[in-house]
């Protein structure tokens, strides 16, 4: 059986046969459409919901029998053969809470809460109504309780009875907008390596450490490392004025701190006779044109 997450479903009421909606499924794996058959009979206003990773269909039996007090939840067992099984039958004729659930015109199952991975225990099912109440149905004790009520503050607006304004939101700890590389850079091992590298002279870091491994090179080339390095070396807080002067050979430039140059007594020979354009420092490098 294909995993439901690879299948997109939507109910469709085709124009040719307005009375017989279909569940159209598109397999992301095979890129093919197929049609799913409905459970035994069709009830107006059925809706689809995912419960514990399974596609389910919720049927409000009041729609075909006004005296009925039952909500049915059918689970799709097999995509290829369109086999559905009646998973839950929620009887709302009992306690007051239950009858409260059936009074509103629209009742929608919005999902289940709890750890979906543990299949052994069944998670409570959340049911929202157009009267702005959310109920939790416990499949084990078959009991209902109100978990949320919203005061009808928008009474003045004409809200369509079909409007059910609740949906489930699942929090996730997966970082958003964070590349894998960035996550690697914040691993404990990378943090330890960073602490070591911060305490090395820049020359050692640039010339040797960058060639130790790909991971080290990536770490050293990262902006966060450059920032941390300069912060650690306290470079940013004491800017130096550097002069570009002739150094060594005939075509070589070198940097001399202004302070040193003045103290040593300006050496006419080191003055530049050509115009030099020098970039801002970037990852420890300057470009000279």
């Amino acid at each position, binding site marked *: 059986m294909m995993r439901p997450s690879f299948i997109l479903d939507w109910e469709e009421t085709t124009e040719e046969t307005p009375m017989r909606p279909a569940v159209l499924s598109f397999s992301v794996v095979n890129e093919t459409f197929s049609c799913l058959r409905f459970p035994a009979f069709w009830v107006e206003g059925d809706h689809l919901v995912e419960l514990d990773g399974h596609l389910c269909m919720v049927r409000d039996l009041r729609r075909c029998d006004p005296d009925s007090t039952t909500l049915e939840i059918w689970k799709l067992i097999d995509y290829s053969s369109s086999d559905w099984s009646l998973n839950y039958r929620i009887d709302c004729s009992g306690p007051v809470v239950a009858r409260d659930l059936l009074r509103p015109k629209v009742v929608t199952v919005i999902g289940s809460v709890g750890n979906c991975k543990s299949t052994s225990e069944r998670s409570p099912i959340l049911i929202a109504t157009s009267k702005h109440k959310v109920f939790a149905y416990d499949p084990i004790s078959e009991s209902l309780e109100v978990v949320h009520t919203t005061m009808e503050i928008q009474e003045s607006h004409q809200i369509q009875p079909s409007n059910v304004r609740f949906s489930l939101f699942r929090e996730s700890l997966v970082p958003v907008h964070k590349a894998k590389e960035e996550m690697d850079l914040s691993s*404990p*091992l990378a*943090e*330890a390596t960073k*602490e*070591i*590298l*911060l*305490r*090395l*002279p820049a020359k*050692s870091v*640039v*010339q*040797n*450490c*960058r*060639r*130790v*491994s*790909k991971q080290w*090179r990536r770490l050293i080339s990262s902006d966060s490392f450059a920032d941390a390095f300069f912060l650690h070396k306290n470079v940013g807080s004491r800017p130096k004025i550097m002069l570009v002067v002739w150094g060594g050979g005939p075509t070589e430039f070198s940097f001399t701190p202004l302070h040193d140059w003045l103290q040593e007594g300006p050496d006419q020979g080191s003055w530049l006779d050509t115009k030099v354009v020098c970039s801002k420092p970037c990852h420890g*490098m300057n470009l000279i044109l």
Partner: protein
Amino acid sequence: MAAPESGDGNNGAARMVTLISSDNTRFEVEAAAASLSQTLQLTILDGGGGGGDGIPLPNVDSATLSKVLEYCIKHAPAAANGGAPNATAVDRAELERFDNEFVNIDQSVLYSLIMAAHNLEIEGLQSLVAKKVADMIKGKSPMEIRRTLGFPDPTPEEQAEMNAHMLEYGWAYE
């Protein structure tokens, strides 16, 4: 022992806390020593770690934790004095001697010590060990650094990748 005690230690015996390593070994130390860890400090101030509870440290194994605590116990008195402004020269020399001795251990332990210190936010320990490893690799060639730190030799693919990188960007290493 739910109520946090005052830091004056005016009730005789020093307060103890229990730390539990990833391999479930329990360590009982003075709260003052464990509080060198910024991570643990708040928990301990809240009265955690006392009694039979213990603070679990799932990222630190017992070998590393015992080493970490050895450092904390030694440094706790000086830290309690707020960076030891009134410490004598003898005290300072003694701490320095201890630190030098302390990092004289196998490099594999050094690395896990840095990670533990980072995790527990023990600034002094992290700095001490990182400096030691930095000194060990300072001025060494990439290959020597790998061997010093016990990295396996590069695979042929890694070597090829590095060579290709150097061919293109070698100028940046001058």
